[in-house]
């Protein structure tokens, strides 16, 4: 715990202007949410830029949630649930997978930068995987920078 404090002390104060990636994650209650809990109980430190929204199952995730997240200024969106075959509800994740496959194609067709939408499977036992995934995604979004294209389009359409 001492080292934690020292690390915090060493860092410069967050400047008001500095851009921080905003990432919204839609996760299922049984696998990925519990996996993220495990990362916590295992004290695996990872990037603090992801905001988790818990749903019962990836099958519940409406693709319009993803659009809405971008509309609200997200620079990246994550979707994660139980591994295929392990769904708490038997088959919800299969429906999600199929739905997202079609959705991906549609987004791609619209010229959407698909690097900003990340689908993955994280089980309740994969705390480390969750932490690694978040770090990877945050790194990737940092590289890509703020999602200006979308925000600009949004601003235009508002005019």
């Amino acid at each position, binding site marked *: 715990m001492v080292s934690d404090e020292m690390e915090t002390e060493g860092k410069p104060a*967050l400047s008001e202007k500095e851009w921080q990636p905003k990432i*919204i994650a839609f996760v299922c209650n049984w696998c990925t949410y519990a996996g993220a809990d495990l990362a916590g109980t295992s004290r695996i430190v990872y990037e603090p830029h992801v905001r988790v*929204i818990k749903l019962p199952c990836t*099958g519940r995730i409406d693709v319009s949630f993803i659009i809405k997240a971008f509309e609200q200024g997200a620079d990246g969106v994550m979707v994660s649930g139980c591994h295929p075959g392990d769904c708490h509800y038997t088959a919800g994740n299969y429906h999600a997978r199929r739905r997202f496959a079609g959705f991906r194609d549609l987004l791609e067709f619209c010229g959407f930068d698909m690097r900003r939408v990340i689908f993955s499977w994280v089980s309740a036992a994969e705390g480390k995987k969750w932490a690694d995934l978040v770090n990877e995604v945050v790194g990737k979004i940092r590289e890509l920078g703020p999602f200006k294209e979308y925000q600009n389009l949004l601003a235009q359409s508002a005019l």
Partner: protein
Amino acid sequence: MSRIGVFICHCGENIARTVDCARLAEESGKLPGVMVSVDYKYMCSDPGQNMIKRAIAEHKLDGVVVAACSPHMHEPTFRAAVVQSGMNPYLCEMANIREHCSWVHTDRELATEKAIDLVRVMVEKVKRNQELFPIRVPITKRALVIGGGIAGIQAALDIAAGGHEVILVERQPSVGGNMARLSETFPTLDCSQCILTPRMVEVARDPRITLYTYAEVEEVEGFVGNFKVKIRQKAKSVNADICNGCGDCWNKCPMKKIPSEFDAGLGYRTAIYVPFPQAVPNTPVIDREHCLKFLKDKCGVCAKVCTRGAIDYEMQDEIIEAEVGAIVVATGYDLYGIGKEQPNERWKGYGEYNYDTYKDVINGIQFERLLSASGPTQGEVRRPSDGKVPKSVAFIACVGSRDPEKGIEYCSKICCMYVAKHAMLYKHKVHDGQPYIFYMDIRAGGKNYEEFVRRAVEEDGVLYIRGRVSKIYKDGDQLVVVGADTLSDSQVQIRADLVVLATAMVPHKNAYEFAQKIGIACGSEGFYSEAHPKLRPVETMTAGIYLAGACQAPKDIPDAVAQASAAASKVQLLFSSDELEREPIVAKVNEVTCVHCRNCIRVCPYSAIDDKEIRDRHGNLIRMVAEVNEGMCMGCGTCVAACPSKSVQLAGFNDEQVFAEILALGHE
């Protein structure tokens, strides 16, 4: 306007070390609709909970957000606390600022920002939460047990002993299953029939058990506590109420050369028959495919000799409908048919063993029949081809099992034990005979199992050869078994009078179709899937349906009986209350906007959504909509995302709530 209270927990230092709780409380207090926002060292402690309870009364709160640990940890605690203040538990939500925040981040400022976001998300959600009430479903306290082998019998007896009605359905004309065909059982060598038949008689005699033999389950509808089943009672052509089982009919039946299924083809039966003398019920059935009366409209001898007039050639199949609250599936196993003909492409069979061609290459269950006192040889070991007593017998273990090349990867579990038993029993009957066992490993895990195998080697002189058999061919009236001995690194040839193959246990051949019919899941091998491999081994993923015996995985008698009793106790547990209480996180259809596209019906993993007719008061059909059965819905929400007209919503996770959560993150 909402009146929300936010309660922030320091969790000692666990949260407060990384998250600035005072600032979090201050920021949360500024959120619209938040009436009170406080932080405290241990919110889950009694003083912490009392703080929440007091605030609900004082500020007339209509929603509570506890920012603390994971809801998987303390949601029940805090929901119980708000209930004590008269608040509906579903108006309390948790923001996870420990596992998802303080424990995984080190930057105090960023962690505090995140915590503020997480609280804001939950505040926006909770404003839109509705009061929800547990769903109560009545329970029909009657169980259906499918399969009358030892597992089904045990489950039926246990449930009946608990005072509940049981319907036991068996496909064959008699209960007993595979266990009734066995000679003696390892590791105690007690006679299988001697321990089983009293149980068989008991299920027939118990007034709480309704037994349907020569019957099959056709249809299962409904849900836990409220299943509706249809059972096809196949026409026995014998009136069971009149028949006294005297046996005159089958003794006089002229069709005497029909291979007996019970004797695995080694013995014969008549067209009107009971499968074995100790059958329960002791009522014969007419096998219409072999009966002259049905084939050529001749004979009719059985009707003539029956003094009670029990024979009824006009009898039709009958559909019996029943309501049950729980189902135990105990449909048992088949043996891997090792011949050239295979039911699927994965299974390759063992053509090189010539099981189809040589009469003296038999499988384990056939050898059981040869050993059994009620078998075709009255328990004398005589080989099928010429009735000679074999002086050497080669037993081959793992035929089909643990052989991915041939299609089955798993271990059939019981073969090591029954092969040792077979060799032992053979030696007990043919003192000057020599048993050989070809094996891969000996897996004798079980109470007194290893000791049993040692006894076979040390006391009965069974010769174990570690290696696989590559082929079996005929030489004169003997069979030459060619194999490897991997311990001496040499080829071996054994001249045997009889070869017994320990073939793999496989699911019943219609297992997959049956699983589809009743709505449970199968693994890739076709064995039925339990809800959790360790913690819920007798439940299926379908509430109210339980598993017992070898339909779930290969298992021996003690394991099958243990699982049957476990399944029965689960049924008793379900039947211990009059109503089932379920979490109200279920989907609901808005009938006004539903256009009946049936998307939700198609995607529901639980078949919980059905068509509903809307009729006017004259009974004319106006239109169709979808309807969710609350008893079956498990609340995954797949239907909600699939609905194009947004007419299905999931309580607790409706679109309004989720969009509010997303909007809460878009504040800047």
